[in-house]
């Protein structure tokens, strides 16, 4: 009963790591990165959305926006707590970054991260009003689902469990965005929606990034990543286009 095996073999055969004490250093570093990208993105996303709550045209819209802010912050908390088990200073973490910071609106789409936190690049761009926020939420919502479905299979069991709880709530946020766009379309906001779609589509597409081939192979071997960026981006395009078709929205390229 005393056999010990190589952790990479163990993971390759479907094993799970369960707490910080049995996570090897390099795996840990990559896992921490995954988790901090998630946490920072949720915090930055929530912070950006908090600013547009009062742009909501009616009380229902404001409730929906406030709920999204609350729940995204809660999701950050769930994963930050796991980082805390690795020794991360969770109290300091949240206050350490200016989550509302954004680049100028006309910054070119790209996947370079900001220098001080690990948020996905898309959260570096500012929202401009209600229609813009709803459009971004729809586009990013589908991207989040595709990415979280991959991440929920992660070999670090506590993170997989946390993300399985997060996923249905994030999906609901995307539904709220679709419902919101339906109303905005009916109110004749088609032109503004089209503008926002063409602004956000390349910026959201850029969140699907592959690390170098070598690192990607390592991440896959450790079960920290599964699908490649092109695969995930294609799945996102498919879901997004289906949603836009449902809404009767055609993008002006």
């Amino acid at each position, binding site marked *: 009963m005393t056999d010990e095996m190589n952790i990479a073999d163990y993971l390759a055969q479907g*094993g799970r790591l369960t707490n910080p004490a*049995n996570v090897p250093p390099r795996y840990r570093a990559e896992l*921490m990165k995954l988790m901090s990208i998630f946490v920072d993105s949720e915090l930055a996303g929530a912070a950006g959305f908090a600013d547009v709550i009062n742009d909501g045209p009616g009380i229902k819209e404001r409730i929906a926006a406030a709920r999204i802010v609350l729940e995204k912050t809660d999701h950050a908390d769930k994963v930050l707590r796991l*980082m805390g088990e690795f020794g991360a*200073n969770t109290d300091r973490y949240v206050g350490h970054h200016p989550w509302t910071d954004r680049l100028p609106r006309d910054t070119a789409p790209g996947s370079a*991260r900001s220098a001080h936190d690990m948020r996905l690049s898309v959260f570096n761009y500012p929202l401009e009003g209600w229609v813009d926020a709803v459009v971004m939420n729809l586009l990013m919502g589908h991207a989040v689902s595709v990415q979280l479905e991959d991440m929920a299979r992660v070999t670090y069991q506590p993170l997989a469990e946390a993300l399985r709880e997060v996923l249905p709530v994030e999906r609901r946020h995307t539904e709220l965005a679709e419902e919101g766009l339906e109303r905005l379309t009916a109110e004749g906001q088609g032109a503004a929606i089209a503008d926002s779609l063409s602004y956000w589509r390349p910026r959201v597409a850029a969140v699907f990034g592959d690390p170098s081939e070598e690192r990607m192979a390592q991440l896959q071997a450790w079960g920290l990543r599964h699908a490649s960026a092109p695969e995930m981006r294609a799945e996102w395009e498919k879901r997004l286009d289906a949603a836009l078709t449902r809404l009767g929205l055609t993008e002006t390229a």
Partner: protein
Amino acid sequence: MPRFHELTVRDVKKTIRDAVVVTLEPANGESFDFIQGQYLTFRRDFDGTEVRRSYSICAGRGEGVLQVGIKKVDGGAFSTWANEDLQPGMVLEAMEPMGSFHTPLDATAQRSYLGFAGGSGITPVLSILKTVLATEPRSDFTLVYANRGVNSIMFREELEDLKNLYMGRLNIIHVLESDAMDIDLFQGRVDAEKCAALFEHWIDVENVDTAFICGPEPMMLGIAKALKDHGLSEEQIKFELFASAQPGRLARKATSAEAGTQAARTQATVTLDGTTRSFEMDKDLSVLDAALENAMDAPYACKAGVCSTCKCRVIEGEVEMIANHALEDYEVERGYVLSCQSYPLTDRVVVDYDQ
């Protein structure tokens, strides 16, 4: 950040020849609530080196007692000390209970649980089964418990008592590796094949709601495979891995010969919050750890080179940053490093946290 708390040792009891059950009580009367299946991380100084080890709680949640099981590991500083020198009245330091090797309980639920334990992997499983049986009066629990021989079965008597207490709801199957058993099925290793055989007549695997597995890696893989082959989903299978792969130090890359010397130590000068301190440090130590060891409250969060909280600027000398997941290239060019990932190359290093 998790803090360490003082726990007074109330009792140390041998359960088998090389394992003890340690009963603990928070020293200052604070509550130390745990969830079944969680573990405590202890720290202790051994000849100037801090050793941290995690041990699972073996008590049930409602038992009103905090107990961990510590099996002696060959060459293990902490476990040997706990087995040989730990006495009632001594004070241990531990972080609050952690771990997610548990599922939510519901007093009205009628569930079937299946637990697999290998050797000292019994400790969290024991905590879970005691809590489940006490909290969910309509649920049942089947334990498959693998050991080398009868003499190495931890908690053997306690398990017998529990079987009598929860007659009909707790089923225990001992599988022994070396001792002869009346039935072949109960002898040998618990692997996928053995599980499949057990699922044929002895365990109603179709109706299992959740399976808990704690033991050595190959055993867990075999069991998980068998469970999946028999229809259990990923969500229904809970792993708890031994701490056999306790994190060691990341191997350092070969250093460039011209930059440093063969000297094992370096003279470090660190500026933090406007205060500058100098000390000699080991080149095998990260700049961050050296600062912390020298009582400087250096900032850090993830210690994985991720969060950049530990960023500092190298003013003089050279360090090797073995991982960087946070700093941009231009910052590195300007001399910024993640101190938790940086090891001195030169015999003198000056860094500044304030820049």
